[in-house]
C-alpha cells in the first residue's frame, strides 16, 4: 500500500517512518513524502496511481492542502485516490470545505496514530 504524506514540516517524515516502522519493515505500507502541494502534484504526475492514499496537511505555504485536494479530486477521477486531510485547525469551516472538495476523511493534529492505523487498515 502506497501512502503519500504531504506536510511542510519535514520532521513529519521521520515521525511517520518511526510510527509505522513495523509496517514499513514488514512492507505492509510504502510511504512517500512531499513537503508542499506542488511537490505532491509532481509526485502524483510521476507516479500515477501508485499512491492509493494521500495524507495532506491543510496549512502550507503556497498551495494549500485544500487546493491540492481539489486538484487531485478533479484531475485523478478514475479512480480517484483516497485523500485524508490532516490539520491543526479542526474548525467547521475547514472541515466543511474539505468535505465539499471530496476529502475522504478529516483528522486533526496531533495525529492519533492508533486511530490512523486502524483507518488505513480498513481501506
Amino acid at each position, binding site marked *: 500500500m502506497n501512502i503519500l504524506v504531504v506536510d511542510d514540516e519535514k520532521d513529519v517524515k521521520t515521525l511517520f517512518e*518511526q510510527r509505522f516502522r513495523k509496517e514499513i519493515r514488514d512492507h505492509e505500507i510504502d510511504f512517500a513524502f512531499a513537503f508542499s502541494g506542488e511537490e505532491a502534484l509532481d509526485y502524483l504526475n510521476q507516479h500515477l496511481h501508485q499512491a492509493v492514499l494521500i495524507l495532506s496537511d491543510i496549512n502550507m505555504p503556497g498551495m494549500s492542502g485544500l487546493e491540492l485536494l481539489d486538484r487531485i479530486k478533479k484531475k485523478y477521477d478514475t479512480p480517484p485516490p483516497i485523500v485524508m486531510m490532516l490539520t491543526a485547525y479542526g474548525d467547521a469551516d475547514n472541515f466543511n470545505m474539505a468535505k465539499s472538495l471530496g476529502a475522504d476523511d478529516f483528522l486533526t*493534529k496531533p495525529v492519533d496514530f492508533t486511530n490512523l492505523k486502524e483507518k488505513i487498515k480498513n481501506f
Partner: protein
Amino acid sequence: MIHNKQAQCSVRFYPAEIALLTIILLFLFSKGVNAQNPQIDSINRLIAKTTDDTTRINIYIDKVNLLAGSDLNAAITVGKEQLLQSEKINYYKGIVMLRSQLASNYIFTGNYELALDNLHFLEKFVKPKDSVRYSGILACYGMMYGVKGVYDSSIWYYSKAIEINERIQNNIELPGNYANISIGYQQLANYPMALEYQQRSLTLTQKLKLKPQQARTMLNMAITYQNIGDTGKAIEMYEASIQLAEKINSRITQLYGYSNLATIYLGKKEWTKVYDLGIKAAELAEKSGDIGIQAASLSKAAQSLAFQNKFAEATELSKRSIALADSSKQPKNISQAFQVMATTLFLQKKYTEAIPYFEKSFQIVQADPAFDRAIVEAYIFLSQCYEYSGNYKKALENYQMSVNITDSMRRKDNIRKATEVSMNFEFQKKQEIQKAEQVLKDSITRSKQIALLVGLGIFLLLAVFAFIGFKNKQKANKLLKEQKLQIESTLNKLKSTQAQLIQSEKMASLGELTAGIAHEIQNPLNFVNNFSDINREMLAEMKDEISKGNMDDANAIADDVIANEEKINHHGKRADDIVKGMLQHSRKSEGKKEITNINDLCEEYVRLSYHGLRAKDKNFNASFKTHIDATLPQINVVPQDIGRVILNLLNNAFYTTSERQKIEDEGYMPIVTITTKKEADKILISVKDNGTGIPEKIRDKIFQPFFTTKPTGSGTGLGLSLSYDIVKTHDGEIKVESNEGEGTEFIVSLPVA
C-alpha cells in the same frame, strides 16, 4: 452855542470828579468789597461764636472790608472799636490792618487829617520786614495824594508799592496798585501809561478771576477812553463794567459807572438819560455813605433839569447838592455844586442872582484852579452875567479871564491833543506792533501747535498702535503661552498615547499572530509528544530484543531512540524560541542590539505572519517564497524591532493580496516573496507582493502615523510608521515601489557595519 459850551463845560468839569471818584474807587479795589447782608449776617454769627480775641478781631477786619464796600461810616465805626480792642491786647496784625482800613475809609469820606494820623502812625509801627503791610501803607499814601489831586506824589508812592508788590508777587494788592497809578497818569494826561497799567490790572484780575476788581478796572479804562475822547469805547466799557458790577452786586462800581455815564450823556445833551443816571448814582451814593459823589450826581441831575427848563426842580436839587457837597468837604464838588446852581440861575436869566454862585465857585478852587473848559465857560457865563447886569468892567475882566484861560487851555489843549494824537498813534502803533507780534506769535504758536498737534497726533497714533500692538502682543503672548501649555500637555498626552498605541499596536499584531503562534507551537509540541511516545515504544522493543539476545536489533533501535531524542530536543527548543520571540515582541522596545541572522529572522516571521493570516481567514491562502542570500553577514540590530518591521511588511503584503483576491477571478494566485540580499555595505530585505498596489496619491502618506487603508478598527495605522522609525534608528532606509493593481515592493536597507 451857549448850550453847547455849557455842555462842554460840564464835561470838562467832570474829569476832576472822575479822577476823584476813580481814585476812591480804586482804593476800595484792594479790599474785597462786596457787602451783602447774608455775608454780614454770617460774619456776625461767626463773631458771636468766637471766643478767641485775635480770631474775633480778624473776623471783624473782614467785616470792615465788607462794610467799606457798602457803608463807609459803619466801616469806620467798627474799625475804631476793633482798633481799641487790638491795642488793648497789643495785636500787631489787628492794629496794622484796622489802621490801614481806617486811613483809607477816612480818605473816602474826605477826612484826610485822620487818614494821615493813621498813616504816620503805621509808617513807624509796621515792622521793616513786613513788605506786604509796608507796600499797603505806600499805596494808601498814593491814594490819598491821588484823591487830593497831587498826582506826581500819588504816582511816586504807587510805583514804590508796585515795585515791592511785584517783587513779592502780591497779586492781591497789585491790581489795585496798577489801577490807581493809572489814575495818576490819567490826570497828568499820560494816557498811554494809564492804559498800560489798566491793561496790566485787567489781565491780572481776569487771570485771578477777581470780578469786582475787574469791573473797576473796566470802569477806569472807560474813564481813560472818555478822557481820550473815545466816547463810543468809553460807553462800551462803562456798560460792561456796570453789567459785571450788577451781577456781582458791587454797588460802588455801579455808582461810579452810572455817575460817569451820566457825565458822558451830559456832553451828548441827552438830558433824560443824564437825569436817570444821575438820580440812580445819587441813590447808590447815599446808600454807600459817599456824600461827595451824591452831591456831584445830584448836580448833574439838576443840570439836566435846568436844560430841560425844569428850573424849580433843578434849583431844589442844586440846593441839596450844595449842602451835601459842603459836608463832603471836597472843594471840586463844592465848586461844581455852586456852578450848577449858578448855571441854573443864568439859564433863567437871573444874572445878578447867578453872579455870587459863580464867584463862590471860582473862589473855592482858587488854591488849585483847574484850567479847563468848565472854568472858561463859567467865566464867560459870569462875564455875560455882569454884562447883563451892567457891570461891564467886571464883564470885561471875566471875559479877559476866559480868554487867558482859553489861550493857556489851547496850549494845554494842543498839548493834550498832541498827546492824544501821539498817544493814539503810539497806542495804535503799539497795538499794531502787538497785533503783528501776536499774529507772528500766533502763527508761530499755531505752527508750533500744528506741529505739536501733528506730533501729538502721530505720537498718539503711534501710542495707540503701540498700545494695540502691545495689547495684541500681550494677547498673542498669552494665547501663545496658553497654546504652548496646551500643546505641551497635548504633546505629553500624545506621547503617552503613542506609547500606549505602540504597545497596543504590538499587542494587536501579537493578537493577529496568536493563531500563527499557536500553530507554530502546536507543531513542535506535537513532534515532542509523538517522538517521546515513539521512544517509549522503541525502548520497550529494545528491551525485548536484548532479552532475546538480538543485540544488533537492540542497537539499531537505540540509534533511532537517540535520533528521536534529538528531534524532541529540537522541537522543544523551537517552541521555546517561539515563546521567547512572542515575549520579546510584546515587550516594550528596550531591546539591545545583538548580532542577528537576518535570514533566520525573515523565515521565522514569514511563518508567523502566514499562519496568523491563515488562522484569521480560513478561505484565504497565499503562497510565500523566500529567496535567501546564504552569504548574508550577520548584523548588529535589535532583533525584535527588525522582526517587527519584517512582520509588518509581511502582514501588509498578505493583507493586500487577500484584498485583491476578493475582487479577482479564480486565476489570481496571491504570492508574497521575501528576499534577502547583500549589496555593497548594505543588507537589503525585500518584501514583495502581487496585491492591489498603493495608489499614487496616498503613497507619500503611508509612513504617516495612523494612516491606514484598513476598515476602522482593523488597523492601528501605526505599523508602517513604527517600521519607518525603527529602520531610521538603525541608520537604515525603507523604500517603496508600487504599481496600482500589480503589487508593491518594500525594500529595507540596513548597514552592515
